[in-house]
């Protein structure tokens, strides 16, 4: 049974998130005075045809480091769901 890796990639806190800033301002303009900040990241679903959880985890880690995130400016996290 394959696994779905639900991967989140977010900008590191030290990196200015201009998209998030624009959304934050828009929300404030809409009157949501209690909105303090917004940050935008990426959500990526990858189906991995592996039977073994550890193997699926290894692949999810590897692809997140190698391609899906840039460690200089981004962090990633993921959950694995058994299909």
């Amino acid at each position, binding site marked *: 049974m394959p696994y779905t890796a639900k991967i989140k990639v977010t*900008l590191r806190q030290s*990196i*200015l998130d*201009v*998209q998030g*800033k*624009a959304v934050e301002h828009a929300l404030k303009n809409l009157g949501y005075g209690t909105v303090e900040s917004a940050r935008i990241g*990426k959500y990526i679903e990858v189906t991995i045809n592996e039977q073994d959880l550890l193997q699926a985890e290894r692949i999810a880690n590897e692809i997140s480091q190698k*391609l*899906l995130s*840039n460690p*200089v*400016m981004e962090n990633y996290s993921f959950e694995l769901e058994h299909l």
Partner: protein
Amino acid sequence: MADVLVGVVVFPGSNCDHDTEYAVASFDGVRPVMLWHNEHDLKGARAIILPGGFSYGDYLRAGSIARFSPIMQEVIEFARKGFPVLGICNGFQVLLESGLLEGALSRNRDKKFLCCQTNIRPVNCATIFTDQYNEGDVLSIPIAHGEGNYFAPSEVIESLEDHDQIVFKYTDSLGEVTDEANPNGSLKNIAGIINRQGNVLGLMPHPERASEKLLGSLDGRPLFESLYKHIVGS
């Protein structure tokens, strides 16, 4: 003597490849050769240029998918052997993603895509890409990017400074490095950096768009002249 070949890589989504080809072809002694992203053959090129554009639609992150294209495996090998590789704009982003240069480029500080003339200053004129410039030259070269905000951890910035790897900085028209002259928020006004070995240069401004009198500036030409002097002479 046969012309020395300069490879210009073409990714799907490159859009400065022909400008770069045109600029290369305007010099004596060198000839451009176009290299398609799916190829593994550098066709005898003695230097490689990664042009500007939106390789692979800038999907995921600018340059991140181009970095794994077949031709890039050869370009990385070529660079590791010490041959010259120049990345312009999106090409700079590809070089950073491929680890040939350190750091990353995030979105411009003011959220805008910037397409305008900028002033930059070569702050290291002792490289194979800049030895035809003089310290103190203030160049007028255009930029056109949405993600040109150079970032690197402080220890990387220190190391770049210690080893004279910062090659171009954004300045005002007098050559002063000021925050107002920084178009995109890049740390230390960095517009271009070189690797430690001195054979891989990446920069956001477009020297190929400042290499023809009709386009209003010839300030990009000495960059190509420096490179060609190096490869034709070697």
